[in-house]
Protein backbone atom coordinates (compact mmCIF):
# COMPACT_ATOMS: atom_id res chain seq x y z
CA UNK A 1 0.00 0.00 0.00
CA UNK A 2 1.27 3.44 -0.74
CA UNK A 3 -0.11 6.91 -1.25
CA UNK A 4 -0.68 8.02 -4.82
CA UNK A 5 1.96 10.01 -6.64
CA UNK A 6 1.13 13.40 -8.05
CA UNK A 7 0.56 12.10 -11.56
CA UNK A 8 -1.67 9.34 -10.32
CA UNK A 9 -3.68 11.75 -8.16
CA UNK A 10 -4.09 14.07 -11.11
CA UNK A 11 -5.28 11.31 -13.39
CA UNK A 12 -7.79 10.13 -10.82
CA UNK A 13 -9.14 13.59 -10.09
CA UNK A 14 -9.53 14.28 -13.78
CA UNK A 15 -11.67 11.21 -14.08
CA UNK A 16 -13.69 11.98 -11.00
CA UNK A 17 -14.28 15.55 -12.04
CA UNK A 18 -16.05 14.27 -15.11
CA UNK A 19 -18.67 12.81 -12.81
CA UNK A 20 -18.77 15.07 -9.80
CA UNK A 21 -17.13 18.22 -11.06
CA UNK A 22 -15.87 20.47 -8.33
CA UNK A 23 -17.17 18.39 -5.49
CA UNK A 24 -14.03 16.31 -5.28
CA UNK A 25 -12.87 18.58 -2.53
CA UNK A 26 -15.80 17.36 -0.51
CA UNK A 27 -14.34 13.88 -0.74
CA UNK A 28 -10.86 15.02 0.07
CA UNK A 29 -11.79 17.31 2.92
CA UNK A 30 -14.56 15.78 4.93
CA UNK A 31 -16.09 17.26 8.05
CA UNK A 32 -16.69 13.87 9.65
CA UNK A 33 -13.16 12.46 9.55
CA UNK A 34 -9.90 12.28 7.65
CA UNK A 35 -10.25 10.08 4.63
CA UNK A 36 -7.50 9.27 2.22
CA UNK A 37 -6.74 7.49 -1.01
CA UNK A 38 -4.20 4.71 -1.05
CA UNK A 39 -2.88 2.54 -3.83
CA UNK A 40 -2.64 -1.19 -3.37
CA UNK A 41 -1.75 -3.51 -6.25
CA UNK A 42 -2.75 -0.86 -8.77
CA UNK A 43 -6.15 -0.29 -7.22
CA UNK A 44 -7.16 2.93 -5.55
CA UNK A 45 -8.93 2.57 -2.22
CA UNK A 46 -10.72 5.28 -0.27
CA UNK A 47 -10.68 4.81 3.46
CA UNK A 48 -10.71 6.58 6.75
CA UNK A 49 -7.46 7.03 8.55
CA UNK A 50 -8.32 4.62 11.32
CA UNK A 51 -8.99 1.86 8.83
CA UNK A 52 -5.69 2.76 7.20
CA UNK A 53 -3.88 2.42 10.48
CA UNK A 54 -5.44 -0.96 11.05
CA UNK A 55 -4.55 -2.07 7.56
CA UNK A 56 -0.88 -1.43 8.11
CA UNK A 57 -0.79 -4.59 10.15
CA UNK A 58 -1.24 -6.78 7.09
CA UNK A 59 1.50 -7.80 4.74
CA UNK A 60 1.13 -6.85 1.13
CA UNK A 61 0.31 -10.28 -0.16
CA UNK A 62 -2.26 -10.94 2.56
CA UNK A 63 -4.05 -7.61 2.25
CA UNK A 64 -6.92 -7.95 -0.21
CA UNK A 65 -8.89 -4.77 0.07
CA UNK A 66 -9.18 -1.69 2.26
CA UNK A 67 -12.12 0.65 2.56
CA UNK A 68 -13.84 1.04 -0.80
CA UNK A 69 -12.24 0.55 -4.16
CA UNK A 70 -12.70 3.56 -6.36
CA UNK A 71 -11.01 2.12 -9.38
CA UNK A 72 -7.74 0.93 -10.71
CA UNK A 73 -4.84 2.05 -12.79
CA UNK A 74 -4.29 0.14 -15.97
CA UNK A 75 -0.93 -1.01 -17.27
CA UNK A 76 -0.57 2.25 -19.17
CA UNK A 77 -1.45 4.30 -16.07
CA UNK A 78 -4.94 5.29 -17.11
CA UNK A 79 -7.50 5.44 -14.35
CA UNK A 80 -10.59 3.31 -14.69
CA UNK A 81 -13.42 4.10 -12.33
CA UNK A 82 -15.30 1.18 -10.81
CA UNK A 83 -18.95 0.80 -9.87
CA UNK A 84 -17.92 0.40 -6.24
CA UNK A 85 -17.30 4.12 -6.16
CA UNK A 86 -20.94 4.86 -6.87
CA UNK A 87 -21.95 5.32 -3.25
CA UNK A 88 -19.47 8.09 -2.85
CA UNK A 89 -20.09 9.77 -6.14
CA UNK A 90 -23.86 9.66 -6.06
CA UNK A 91 -24.50 12.52 -3.67
CA UNK A 92 -22.24 14.84 -5.64
CA UNK A 93 -23.08 13.75 -9.12
CA UNK A 94 -23.51 16.36 -11.76
CA UNK A 95 -26.50 14.68 -13.23
CA UNK A 96 -27.94 11.26 -13.78
CA UNK A 97 -29.82 9.74 -16.54
CA UNK A 98 -30.90 6.42 -17.83
CA UNK A 99 -30.07 5.83 -21.42
CA UNK A 100 -33.20 5.62 -23.48
CA UNK A 101 -31.53 4.01 -26.43
CA UNK A 102 -28.68 1.62 -26.87
CA UNK A 103 -25.23 2.98 -27.56
CA UNK A 104 -25.35 2.10 -31.21
CA UNK A 105 -28.74 3.63 -31.63
CA UNK A 106 -27.67 6.79 -29.88
CA UNK A 107 -25.08 7.28 -32.54
CA UNK A 108 -27.40 6.79 -35.45
CA UNK A 109 -30.34 8.73 -34.22
CA UNK A 110 -31.57 12.13 -35.43
CA UNK A 111 -30.79 15.14 -33.26
CA UNK A 112 -34.18 15.60 -31.75
CA UNK A 113 -34.95 12.16 -30.40
CA UNK A 114 -34.78 11.36 -26.73
CA UNK A 115 -31.67 9.56 -25.65
CA UNK A 116 -31.58 10.09 -21.90
CA UNK A 117 -34.29 9.88 -19.35
CA UNK A 118 -33.57 12.03 -16.38
CA UNK A 119 -35.23 10.15 -13.58
CA UNK A 120 -35.65 12.66 -10.86
CA UNK A 121 -35.75 11.63 -7.25
CA UNK A 122 -38.62 12.66 -5.09
CA UNK A 123 -37.44 16.04 -3.96
CA UNK A 124 -35.76 17.19 -7.11
CA UNK A 125 -38.65 19.14 -8.56
CA UNK A 126 -39.00 21.04 -5.33
CA UNK A 127 -35.28 21.60 -4.97
CA UNK A 128 -34.83 22.87 -8.43
CA UNK A 129 -38.19 24.50 -9.02
CA UNK A 130 -36.59 27.88 -9.58
CA UNK A 131 -34.38 26.68 -12.35
CA UNK A 132 -36.70 24.24 -14.00
CA UNK A 133 -39.36 26.60 -15.17
Amino acid at each position, binding site marked *: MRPLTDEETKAM*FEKLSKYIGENIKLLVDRPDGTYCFRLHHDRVYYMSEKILKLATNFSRDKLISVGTCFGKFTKTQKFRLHITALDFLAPYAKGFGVAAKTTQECRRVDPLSI*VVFHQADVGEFI*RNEDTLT
Partner: protein
Amino acid sequence: MAACSVEELLAKAEQEEAEKLKTISVQKELDLDFDVGNLLACDKNRIESRDFKEQKKEDFLRALARDNTQLLINEIWKLPTERVEEAIVAKLPEPATRLPREKPPPKPKPPTKWEQFAKLKGIQKKKKTNMVWDETRVAKNEFNRLKNIARAQKIKTPGVGLLPRTKQSKDELSRAVSVAKTSTASAGRFQDRLPKEKPPKNAGKRRKFEPLIGDFSSEKQKQLELLKVMDSKRPKLDITKAVNKQMREEDREEAASKRKGRKGGAAGRPKGKGGKGKGGRAGGGKAGGGGKRRGKPGKR
Protein backbone atom coordinates in the same frame (compact mmCIF):
# COMPACT_ATOMS: atom_id res chain seq x y z
CA MET B 1 71.98 -67.24 66.36
CA ALA B 2 70.26 -64.13 65.07
CA ALA B 3 73.35 -63.05 63.17
CA CYS B 4 73.56 -66.37 61.48
CA SER B 5 69.94 -66.24 60.51
CA VAL B 6 70.35 -62.68 59.16
CA GLU B 7 73.31 -63.73 57.07
CA GLU B 8 71.45 -66.73 55.90
CA LEU B 9 68.48 -64.58 54.99
CA LEU B 10 70.66 -62.14 53.07
CA ALA B 11 72.38 -64.96 51.22
CA LYS B 12 69.03 -66.44 50.38
CA ALA B 13 67.76 -63.09 49.14
CA GLU B 14 70.80 -62.70 46.94
CA GLN B 15 70.40 -66.16 45.56
CA GLU B 16 66.82 -65.53 44.75
CA GLU B 17 67.71 -62.27 43.06
CA ALA B 18 70.35 -64.00 40.99
CA GLU B 19 67.90 -66.67 40.04
CA LYS B 20 65.40 -64.05 38.96
CA LEU B 21 67.98 -62.29 36.87
CA LYS B 22 69.06 -65.56 35.48
CA THR B 23 65.64 -66.28 34.28
CA ILE B 24 65.49 -63.02 32.39
CA SER B 25 68.66 -63.66 30.45
CA VAL B 26 68.53 -66.68 28.24
CA GLN B 27 71.48 -68.29 26.62
CA LYS B 28 71.07 -69.74 23.18
CA GLU B 29 73.46 -71.10 20.69
CA LEU B 30 71.96 -69.23 17.79
CA ASP B 31 70.19 -65.98 18.20
CA LEU B 32 66.52 -65.90 17.31
CA ASP B 33 65.07 -64.13 14.32
CA PHE B 34 62.64 -61.53 15.45
CA ASP B 35 59.79 -59.88 13.62
CA VAL B 36 58.60 -57.71 16.42
CA GLY B 37 55.95 -56.06 14.23
CA ASN B 38 54.18 -59.40 14.01
CA LEU B 39 55.33 -60.41 17.51
CA LEU B 40 57.16 -63.26 15.85
CA ALA B 41 60.34 -65.00 17.04
CA CYS B 42 61.91 -67.80 15.04
CA ASP B 43 64.19 -70.20 16.87
CA LYS B 44 66.59 -72.06 14.61
CA ASN B 45 68.40 -73.85 17.38
CA ARG B 46 68.75 -77.58 17.12
CA ILE B 47 66.62 -79.61 19.36
CA GLU B 48 68.12 -82.70 20.91
CA SER B 49 65.97 -85.66 20.14
CA ARG B 50 66.68 -87.17 23.46
CA ASP B 51 64.76 -84.34 25.11
CA PHE B 52 61.68 -85.54 23.32
CA LYS B 53 62.22 -89.13 24.05
CA GLU B 54 62.16 -88.85 27.71
CA GLN B 55 59.01 -88.55 29.67
CA LYS B 56 59.64 -84.96 30.58
CA LYS B 57 59.12 -83.66 27.04
CA GLU B 58 56.29 -81.53 28.35
CA ASP B 59 58.65 -79.84 30.74
CA PHE B 60 61.19 -79.41 27.96
CA LEU B 61 58.62 -77.86 25.66
CA ARG B 62 57.37 -75.57 28.38
CA ALA B 63 60.91 -74.44 29.20
CA LEU B 64 61.67 -73.85 25.53
CA ALA B 65 58.52 -71.82 25.09
CA ARG B 66 59.25 -69.78 28.20
CA ASP B 67 62.79 -69.03 27.05
CA ASN B 68 61.74 -67.93 23.61
CA THR B 69 58.91 -65.80 24.92
CA GLN B 70 61.34 -64.22 27.34
CA LEU B 71 63.65 -63.34 24.50
CA LEU B 72 60.76 -61.87 22.49
CA ILE B 73 59.66 -59.76 25.40
CA ASN B 74 63.20 -58.58 25.86
CA GLU B 75 63.05 -57.39 22.29
CA ILE B 76 59.78 -55.62 22.95
CA TRP B 77 61.31 -53.84 25.89
CA LYS B 78 64.00 -52.51 23.61
CA LEU B 79 61.43 -50.62 21.56
CA PRO B 80 60.52 -46.96 22.22
CA THR B 81 57.66 -46.68 24.63
CA GLU B 82 54.89 -44.17 25.10
CA ARG B 83 52.32 -43.71 27.75
CA VAL B 84 48.67 -44.18 26.76
CA GLU B 85 46.11 -43.68 29.54
CA GLU B 86 48.15 -44.90 32.48
CA ALA B 87 49.67 -47.81 30.58
CA ILE B 88 53.12 -47.97 29.08
CA VAL B 89 52.83 -49.03 25.49
CA ALA B 90 55.61 -50.07 23.12
CA LYS B 91 55.51 -48.79 19.58
CA LEU B 92 55.80 -51.78 17.30
CA PRO B 93 57.66 -51.41 14.04
CA GLU B 94 56.21 -52.36 10.69
CA PRO B 95 55.79 -56.12 10.24
CA ALA B 96 58.62 -57.53 8.23
CA THR B 97 57.20 -60.90 7.29
CA ARG B 98 54.85 -61.02 4.39
CA LEU B 99 51.84 -63.03 5.35
CA PRO B 100 50.30 -65.33 2.77
CA ARG B 101 46.90 -64.57 1.19
CA GLU B 102 43.88 -65.18 3.26
CA LYS B 103 41.50 -65.71 0.35
CA PRO B 104 42.12 -66.90 -3.22
CA PRO B 105 43.05 -64.22 -5.75
CA PRO B 106 40.16 -62.59 -7.69
CA LYS B 107 39.30 -64.20 -11.00
CA PRO B 108 39.55 -61.84 -13.99
CA LYS B 109 36.18 -60.20 -14.67
CA PRO B 110 34.64 -60.62 -18.12
CA PRO B 111 34.91 -57.38 -20.14
CA THR B 112 31.86 -55.12 -20.12
CA LYS B 113 29.93 -54.25 -23.25
CA TRP B 114 31.76 -50.96 -23.55
CA GLU B 115 35.11 -52.56 -22.99
CA GLN B 116 34.40 -55.09 -25.70
CA PHE B 117 33.34 -52.33 -28.06
CA ALA B 118 36.35 -50.21 -27.22
CA LYS B 119 38.66 -53.12 -27.82
CA LEU B 120 36.94 -53.82 -31.09
CA LYS B 121 37.24 -50.22 -32.27
CA GLY B 122 40.68 -49.72 -30.84
CA ILE B 123 39.58 -46.86 -28.58
CA GLN B 124 42.13 -45.92 -26.02
CA LYS B 125 41.18 -44.53 -22.69
CA LYS B 126 42.00 -40.78 -22.64
CA LYS B 127 42.11 -39.27 -19.25
CA LYS B 128 40.84 -35.65 -19.17
CA THR B 129 42.60 -33.52 -16.63
CA ASN B 130 40.37 -30.87 -15.06
CA MET B 131 43.34 -28.65 -14.58
CA VAL B 132 43.62 -26.49 -17.64
CA TRP B 133 45.93 -23.56 -17.93
CA ASP B 134 43.68 -20.58 -18.46
CA GLU B 135 45.28 -17.20 -18.79
CA THR B 136 42.01 -15.33 -18.56
CA ARG B 137 41.32 -16.96 -15.24
CA VAL B 138 44.64 -15.90 -13.93
CA ALA B 139 43.89 -12.36 -15.04
CA LYS B 140 40.50 -12.46 -13.39
CA ASN B 141 42.01 -13.72 -10.15
CA GLU B 142 44.47 -10.91 -10.20
CA PHE B 143 41.71 -8.40 -10.83
CA ASN B 144 39.66 -9.70 -7.96
CA ARG B 145 42.65 -9.66 -5.69
CA LEU B 146 43.24 -6.00 -6.45
CA LYS B 147 39.57 -5.24 -5.95
CA ASN B 148 39.71 -6.88 -2.55
CA ILE B 149 42.70 -4.80 -1.62
CA ALA B 150 40.93 -1.66 -2.79
CA ARG B 151 37.89 -2.54 -0.77
CA ALA B 152 39.96 -3.26 2.31
CA GLN B 153 41.75 0.02 2.11
CA LYS B 154 38.64 1.91 1.01
CA ILE B 155 40.12 3.15 -2.22
CA LYS B 156 37.54 4.20 -4.81
CA THR B 157 37.45 2.18 -7.98
CA PRO B 158 35.66 3.11 -11.21
CA GLY B 159 32.50 1.28 -12.19
CA VAL B 160 32.82 -1.94 -14.05
CA GLY B 161 33.68 -1.85 -17.70
CA LEU B 162 34.47 -5.10 -19.41
CA LEU B 163 36.55 -7.70 -17.66
CA PRO B 164 39.45 -9.01 -19.68
CA ARG B 165 37.86 -12.32 -20.57
CA THR B 166 37.47 -13.95 -23.89
CA LYS B 167 33.77 -14.71 -23.52
CA GLN B 168 31.58 -11.97 -22.11
CA SER B 169 28.07 -12.80 -21.06
CA LYS B 170 25.15 -10.87 -22.51
CA ASP B 171 24.51 -9.49 -19.07
CA GLU B 172 27.99 -8.05 -18.69
CA LEU B 173 27.98 -6.57 -22.16
CA SER B 174 24.65 -4.84 -21.70
CA ARG B 175 25.75 -3.48 -18.34
CA ALA B 176 28.97 -2.18 -19.84
CA VAL B 177 27.00 -0.52 -22.62
CA SER B 178 24.63 1.19 -20.20
CA VAL B 179 27.52 2.35 -18.02
CA ALA B 180 29.29 3.77 -21.04
CA LYS B 181 26.12 5.48 -22.22
CA THR B 182 25.44 7.11 -18.88
CA SER B 183 28.96 8.39 -18.42
CA THR B 184 28.54 11.50 -20.51
CA ALA B 185 28.16 15.08 -19.40
CA SER B 186 24.38 14.93 -19.49
CA ALA B 187 24.17 11.46 -18.00
CA GLY B 188 23.28 9.80 -21.28
CA ARG B 189 20.07 11.67 -21.92
CA PHE B 190 20.98 12.79 -25.43
CA GLN B 191 22.75 9.69 -26.61
CA ASP B 192 21.48 8.27 -29.87
CA ARG B 193 20.28 4.74 -29.89
CA LEU B 194 20.79 2.11 -32.54
CA PRO B 195 17.77 1.55 -34.81
CA LYS B 196 16.51 -1.52 -33.02
CA GLU B 197 17.80 -0.76 -29.56
CA LYS B 198 15.15 -0.55 -26.91
CA PRO B 199 15.19 2.23 -24.32
CA PRO B 200 16.45 1.12 -20.94
CA LYS B 201 13.69 -0.18 -18.75
CA ASN B 202 14.61 1.19 -15.37
CA ALA B 203 16.18 4.41 -16.44
CA GLY B 204 17.13 6.51 -13.51
CA LYS B 205 16.92 5.83 -9.84
CA ARG B 206 14.47 3.76 -7.93
CA ARG B 207 11.17 5.47 -7.32
CA LYS B 208 10.61 6.89 -3.90
CA PHE B 209 7.12 7.19 -2.49
CA GLU B 210 5.66 9.18 0.31
CA PRO B 211 5.38 7.32 3.59
CA LEU B 212 2.17 5.41 4.02
CA ILE B 213 0.91 7.30 7.05
CA GLY B 214 2.39 10.69 6.45
CA ASP B 215 0.99 13.94 7.65
CA PHE B 216 -2.69 13.77 6.79
CA SER B 217 -3.25 17.48 6.84
CA SER B 218 -0.36 18.19 4.50
CA GLU B 219 -1.60 15.47 2.17
CA LYS B 220 -5.03 17.07 2.20
CA GLN B 221 -3.52 20.47 1.49
CA LYS B 222 -1.57 19.13 -1.43
CA GLN B 223 -4.64 17.53 -2.93
CA LEU B 224 -6.72 20.66 -2.51
CA GLU B 225 -3.98 22.69 -4.16
CA LEU B 226 -3.92 20.25 -7.02
CA LEU B 227 -7.67 20.57 -7.38
CA LYS B 228 -7.42 24.32 -7.38
CA VAL B 229 -4.80 24.24 -10.09
CA MET B 230 -6.89 21.83 -12.11
CA ASP B 231 -9.90 24.06 -11.77
CA SER B 232 -7.98 27.12 -12.86
CA LYS B 233 -6.58 25.27 -15.82
CA ARG B 234 -9.94 23.96 -16.92
CA PRO B 235 -11.57 26.44 -19.26
CA LYS B 236 -14.13 28.37 -17.30
CA LEU B 237 -16.36 28.35 -20.27
CA ASP B 238 -17.74 25.06 -21.33
CA ILE B 239 -18.11 25.71 -24.99
CA THR B 240 -20.75 23.15 -25.78
CA LYS B 241 -22.80 24.12 -22.79
CA ALA B 242 -22.54 27.77 -23.62
CA VAL B 243 -23.50 27.13 -27.19
CA ASN B 244 -26.39 24.91 -26.19
CA LYS B 245 -27.58 27.44 -23.71
CA GLN B 246 -27.33 30.18 -26.26
CA MET B 247 -29.27 28.16 -28.75
CA ARG B 248 -31.99 27.42 -26.24
CA GLU B 249 -32.22 31.07 -25.32
CA GLU B 250 -32.56 32.03 -28.94
CA ASP B 251 -35.24 29.42 -29.47
CA ARG B 252 -37.11 30.67 -26.47
CA GLU B 253 -36.86 34.22 -27.76
CA GLU B 254 -38.18 33.26 -31.11
CA ALA B 255 -41.03 31.31 -29.58
CA ALA B 256 -41.90 34.21 -27.28
CA SER B 257 -41.70 36.74 -30.04
CA LYS B 258 -43.82 34.56 -32.30
CA ARG B 259 -46.51 34.48 -29.69
CA LYS B 260 -46.24 38.19 -29.19
CA GLY B 261 -46.17 38.76 -32.87
CA ARG B 262 -49.39 36.81 -33.27
CA LYS B 263 -50.91 38.74 -30.42
CA GLY B 264 -49.32 42.16 -30.74
CA GLY B 265 -48.95 42.75 -34.39
CA ALA B 266 -46.29 44.85 -35.98
CA ALA B 267 -44.06 45.70 -33.00
CA GLY B 268 -40.52 44.95 -33.95
CA ARG B 269 -39.07 41.99 -32.33
CA PRO B 270 -36.80 43.07 -29.52
CA LYS B 271 -33.50 41.74 -30.35
CA GLY B 272 -32.49 42.26 -26.80
CA LYS B 273 -30.18 39.57 -25.81
CA GLY B 274 -28.68 38.78 -29.17
CA GLY B 275 -25.85 41.25 -28.86
CA LYS B 276 -24.35 40.22 -25.61
CA GLY B 277 -22.44 37.35 -27.04
CA LYS B 278 -20.58 34.73 -25.19
CA GLY B 279 -19.00 36.84 -22.51
CA GLY B 280 -22.14 37.42 -20.55
CA ARG B 281 -23.08 33.84 -20.48
CA ALA B 282 -19.73 32.77 -19.20
CA GLY B 283 -20.76 32.62 -15.59
CA GLY B 284 -23.59 30.32 -16.39
CA GLY B 285 -21.44 27.69 -18.01
CA LYS B 286 -19.67 26.57 -14.93
CA ALA B 287 -22.22 27.31 -12.28
CA GLY B 288 -24.73 25.01 -13.88
CA GLY B 289 -24.60 22.90 -10.77
CA GLY B 290 -27.44 20.66 -9.76
CA GLY B 291 -30.02 20.31 -12.42
CA LYS B 292 -28.17 21.08 -15.62
CA ARG B 293 -27.73 18.34 -18.12
CA ARG B 294 -24.79 17.44 -20.22
CA GLY B 295 -24.63 15.64 -23.46
CA LYS B 296 -27.27 15.81 -26.12
CA PRO B 297 -29.95 18.33 -25.58
CA GLY B 298 -33.11 16.33 -25.39
CA LYS B 299 -36.59 17.62 -25.81
CA ARG B 300 -38.04 18.80 -22.58
